[in-house]
């Protein structure tokens, strides 16, 4: 592999400079992206008709004096640009605002609910990798076979599957007809669990109640499948195409010529190189996972940030929507940045770009 080749001493400063420049460029892109997201998060929710105060008081309405007073108290009487600057100013001090519905800090609400979303997303990506990688490799190795065509057909279907419909279908089949899995929620209501870590699989082990872990795991099965379906399809297709590209390379032919076994050639030589684009794909799936979590959490009554965000939009809870979108965007930006950096580190073409 390229990483094992020592760089020529004369080229080393140039190499470091290129990697540094690569890192700086990537970091530099984060700042405008972040501010772009603040603009979108702030103005998008305000485009939806409905005054947050009127939605808080319901159909009975509110007298104009009180309405004006509350608008002033929440700061919505100021011009939009002033509100936006206030929002960004508070953000820079780490203040994501306070929900106008629950009156709790947005960050604290987000952090309370986020472990549920992480748990679900993590399981979904593990599920997608556990199936997507081997299936993609096999499809590439058996290119043109019935298996290949079938897998690629199914993955295309999986990729195009509407999450809402897919979730309901699985619930009706596995919970309603077969009775194998629970319908929704994170754990059976029979278990009284106060959040310790917020991750139900871990908390159910910590409380030491027989059956709690099993119940938590069973509740994860269907949401994991639903949320993991699109990433699974993407990973399987990406792995297949990356593997096909690598399998045609000279060094693979050389490895065959050297008499190495197929398992060693595929597992060691081909897969390591094919994984580079797959890692990027996994990083890009973070956004897909968080977007999918909004629908999956709603179907499965999963108390995560997706569900919370949908409710906040319905209630025109501006601070929660702004803060929630921004926090999710920050996570996606950070993961993509990390993937970019990891890609820079593991991809010899970037790592050694300074030598060419």
């Amino acid at each position: 592999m390229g990483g094992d080749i020592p760089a020529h001493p004369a080229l080393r400063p140039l190499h470091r400079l290129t990697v540094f420049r690569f890192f700086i460029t990537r970091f530099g892109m984060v700042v405008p992206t972040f501010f772009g997201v603040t603009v979108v998060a702030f103005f998008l929710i305000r485009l939806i008709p409905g005054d947050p105060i009127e939605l808080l008081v319901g159909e009975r309405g509110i007298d104009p004096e009180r309405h004006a007073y509350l608008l002033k108290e929440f700061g919505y009487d100021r011009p939009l640009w002033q509100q936006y600057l206030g929002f960004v100013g508070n953000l820079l001090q780490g203040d994501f605002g306070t929900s106008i519905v629950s009156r709790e800090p947005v960050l604290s609400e987000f952090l309370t609910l986020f472990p549920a979303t992480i748990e679900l997303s993590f399981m979904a990506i593990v599920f997608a990798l556990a199936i997507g990688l081997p299936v993609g490799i096999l499809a590439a190795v058996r290119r043109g076979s019935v298996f290949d065509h079938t897998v690629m057909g199914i993955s295309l279907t999986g990729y195009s599957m509407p999450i809402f419909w897919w979730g309901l279908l699985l619930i009706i089949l596995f919970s309603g007809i077969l009775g194998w899995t629970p319908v929704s929620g994170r754990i059976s209501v029979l278990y009284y669990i106060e959040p310790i870590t917020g991750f139900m699989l871990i908390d159910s082990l910590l409380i030491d109640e027989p059956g709690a872990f099993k119940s938590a795991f069973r509740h994860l099965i269907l949401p994991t499948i639903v949320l993991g379906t699109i990433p699974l399809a993407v990973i399987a297709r990406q792995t297949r195409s990356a593997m096909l590209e690598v399998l045609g390379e000279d060094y693979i032919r050389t490895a065959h010529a050297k008499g190495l076994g197929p398992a060693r050639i595929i597992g060691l030589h081909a897969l390591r190189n094919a994984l580079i684009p797959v890692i990027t794909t996994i990083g890009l799936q973070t956004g897909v996972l968080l977007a999918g979590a909004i629908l999956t959490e709603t179907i499965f009554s999963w108390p995560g940030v997706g569900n919370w965000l949908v409710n906040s939009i319905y209630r025109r809870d501006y601070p929660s929507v702004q803060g929630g979108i921004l926090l999710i965007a920050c996570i996606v930006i950070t993961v993509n940045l990390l993937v970019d950096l990891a890609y820079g580190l593991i991809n010899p073409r970037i790592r050694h770009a300074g030598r060419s």
Partner: protein
Amino acid sequence: MNFRRYLTAMLFCLTFAGEAAAQVKTLVFCSEESPDILNPQLSFRQAAFDASSRQVHDRLVAYEPGTAEIVPSLAESWQISEDGLRYEFRLRPNVPFHKLRHFTPSRPLAAEDVVFSFMRQLDPKHPYHEVSGGIYPYFRGLGLPKIIKSVTAEDAGTVIFELKSPYPALLSTLTLDFASILSAEYADAMLAAGTPERVDREPLGTGPFQMIQHQRDALIRYVAHPGYWRGKAPLDNLVFTITPDATVRYQKLRDRECHVVANPDPADLPAMTLDGDVTLVRQVGMDIGYMAFNTRKPPLNDPRVRKALAMAIDREAILKDVYQGLGRPATTMVPQGLWSRGGAPSLPPTDPDGARRLLEKAGISGLELEIWPSPVARPYMPDARRTAEMIRDDWLKIGVESKIVMTSGRDFIKQTMVGRHDVALFGWIAETLDRSLFLSPILGCEAAADGANRSFWCNRNFDRLLEEAARTSNPSERETLYELAQSVLDDELPVLPIARSISFTPMRNEVVNYRGSPLGGHYFYGVDLK
């Protein structure tokens, strides 16, 4: 003792203290949304009321189940002064509050709790007034700040309400969720600890169930209040699981993950009817979908024209096509359940020929009208546009041309309040079982002046009858007054009632004694499991 041990001990006692170690009864209710807040004073949402006031709190007075009679609750008795400006309530003694993990009350219910519960909403200088946003949708929406002068404690067991002007509907108003009684001692303790918002998030009341856990967007857990003044609830535990999707709620019901579910999808009702494990509790809504004639605009100021237009409308067809089994024909504005004699008057039957003759008699020809349907779908008016289209077709048969004007929700309210419409289609829902309180805001003269009465019809005699009926304590006399008011309405016909909603609550067969409330909502005191 830490709270977990306390809870375990309580569950143990509930389980084994009874006869022959009865089985612990846990009812799971699949609700559709998470409560925004757990203080009924601060919300208007059914989800908040179901989770707080209907399980955790009591009010001073209540309705006798199945009737519109007001009976004692936390107030044992009351007296109203001659001028109707002073209400004196005697509180029930020794009513215990719940116990929370972070607060143990030192005393039972006292007058200062009632004072706190109302003065927080009334007095802008009250230390709790602005806590959790200070939005009191019902208290303000009903105009109580302009009616109630003060709420004071005469002694530990007596509360005095002083009014600025007579308000005969006060007792009915005090049955509402926002009038729940909270603990002043708890509020003081939380204020002293610098966490007053906890009063609104971790409720403490005197009600049949005490909340022990709330996981946002996931579940709310209650245990029966062992010292409840009406006797401990038959259920030991009550769990609300928040399940936003109606199809998922039905699957949970079938899968025995829920015993009772909220708000089913109408598409699932036929399957539920055939499901041998499920019972559907049917409830006719205390609401009305209706059409208001703008009586300020000629020729709609002529009762004969209004009657002719009403006679041309095939309301049965609207029921069938628009409500699709989820509506019941309405013959009066007042919901049927509010007529204790059951002899509610009826409307003229559908008769296009008679309508045409009546129009001719009134000298009307070539009439053109604008129909303004409400753009917001409600159970009592699920599709106002479609209703308007059917009315337009019916009127065309008697030679009346009409145009449908669609607007945004906000524009609809604003424009109809200033009388831009000829006729408007929308609805109204009862908050209490008080008929005056139901009719005055949509048909009274005062409401005509401020635009809430979209017919702009003002009949002083009608107003006087409603006012007298609300004041009188003699049921028979009251009934006569309401019937007289109804006959005025029938003669004048400023509005045409169309339908009331029908709602269903599906539950598993093992649930017994569940009674739907005519005003909506879910109450689990008295409910049991077989």
